């Protein structure tokens, strides 16, 4: 069981991710945007962060910068986005990339692998 924080503003996608990860036996909390995720991180000791890039209020890039700046900066980040990997900002720090629509099986494999690494 891995503690996973999902940050995704689109509701259907967020619930699908949560359902998939919970079905795989993980403990999942979801946030509607980056600001919500930052608040949750104070009370939820996530082992993996799954985040969208484009979100209202605080976007995925700002969320990742926040994560990298806080204690526990090594929190593995899986970036899920419709932006192709080749078009992402070069200074964006993430551990794995998954294009939308998400391959849920691949997401499960990535979460397991990153949790093991952690």
């Amino acid at each position, binding site marked *: 069981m891995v503690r996973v924080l999902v940050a995704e503003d689109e509701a259907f996608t967020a619930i*699908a991710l949560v359902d998939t990860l919970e079905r795989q036996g993980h403990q999942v909390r979801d946030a509607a945007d980056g600001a919500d995720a930052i608040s949750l991180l104070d009370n939820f000791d996530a082992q993996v962060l799954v985040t969208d890039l484009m979100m209202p209020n605080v976007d995925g890039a700002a969320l990742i910068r926040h994560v990298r700046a806080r204690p526990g900066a090594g929190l593995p980040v899986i970036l899920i986005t*419709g932006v192709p990997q080749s078009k992402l900002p070069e200074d964006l720090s993430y551990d794995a990339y998954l294009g*939308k629509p*998400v391959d849920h*099986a691949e997401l499960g494999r990535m979460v397991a692998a990153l949790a093991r690494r952690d």
Partner: protein
Amino acid sequence: MSAIERYFSAAGFIPHGYCLLWRPDVLGLHVVSDAIIALAYFSIPLAIAAFVRRRPDLAAEHRRVAVLFATFILGCGLTHVFGIVVLWRPFYVEDGLVKAFTALVSLITAAALWPMLPRLLAIPSPHQLSLANQQLQAEVAARREAVAELEAARAGLEAEVLRRTEELETLARRFEVATDGSVISLAELDGDLRFLWLHNPRPPFDRLVVGEITQGRLGPDAPRVLGAPARQVLASGEPLRTEVTLPIGEESFSFDVKITPAGQGGRILIAASDITEQKRQQAHLQVILRELAHRAKNLLSLVDGIARQTARAEDLPVALVDRFSARLAALGDAYDLLITDDWRGVDLAALVAAQLAFIVPELRERVVIDGPAATVRPEVAQYLALALHELATNATKYGALSDADGRLSVRWSVEPRAEGGSTVRLAWEEAVKAVAPPTRTGFGRSLLERIVPRAVGGEGGLSFPDTGACWRVVFPL
């Protein structure tokens, strides 16, 4: 009586008339003849004097000869006068002196005349002068004719110059009409890159000053992006075309620049087409395109979420949703490649690699991907992505990549078509010991045998020989 008086004394002489016995007829004959001769002789020096006075162009030598000759003739005339005088008065001494004077003058004249003879002979005769005159007149006529021809030629040339000037003026007017207010700026520069001429200068070229080296007004990058290629053209003499961007402050100007040598004077012509707005539009279009692609992928994600919630509510098998989700993800991967190349097409090798990317590293060495460079159309790419995803999934579950010794090759070739364009022949071939052909026609088989061949405008077929699954598709590039 002095000696001189004695010398001139006529004492003892008798007049010459005595010798003629004072015969009136003989006296008259002598008097009249001598008088006529004297008058004739006296008139000749007058004529010579008149001739010399009216011919101021005569050479000094000729004048001297004329004076001597006139003096000689005058002397001769005087001797005849004395011939009359001595008929009645015996002035024979005076008569002799006149003759002596005439003899002296005649000697001097003769002495002066003989050395002059060759030079006098060299003076053209009237006949020669007439011939020369005729020749000169012929030459003058020829020259007049030549002058007339030259005049005609000059008139022709002036007409030609006028015609060409009018043509040039017409061209210049057309050029001005065509370029005034257009996006094209034109300039001529000398070897020091001094602007000599500017036409229709678009910003920032309107900051330039003719006659000065003012590249600095085009921003800090101007010496590099504009000065360097200009010097290259000056050095090589070869025209050059380049695209330059000139950032000035917060603004940025882009130009498609053609630099051409201008004649032999070490000058260059620059034609700069302002593509700033075009660049802005392109950038804006790319932003819109990426945003649309991003939204399209988000829409696929939304569809995936709805499908999952629907399946959950309807208690549908999870495996069904996972397969559906994976197919949407395959489509999303193809979109990624399309977005990367601004929706112009997808490299076939990249498309195949993306759909096989999920294969674990230990299996990858059993996979061969081989084929020439080929860019498939966007509408073909998404269907091929679905087909390759379906084949790869089946290969890992049931085919070559599920077997310990199985192998997979994905090869394609590009062949020219007689009617133009190219054809791609792609083959997915699995090599596996035990193969179990599917017993039913599911989504995958329908996709590979019917949907994809139709969608790509080609032909295709799935077969299961003893060696394993084999899918071939042929489609126009």
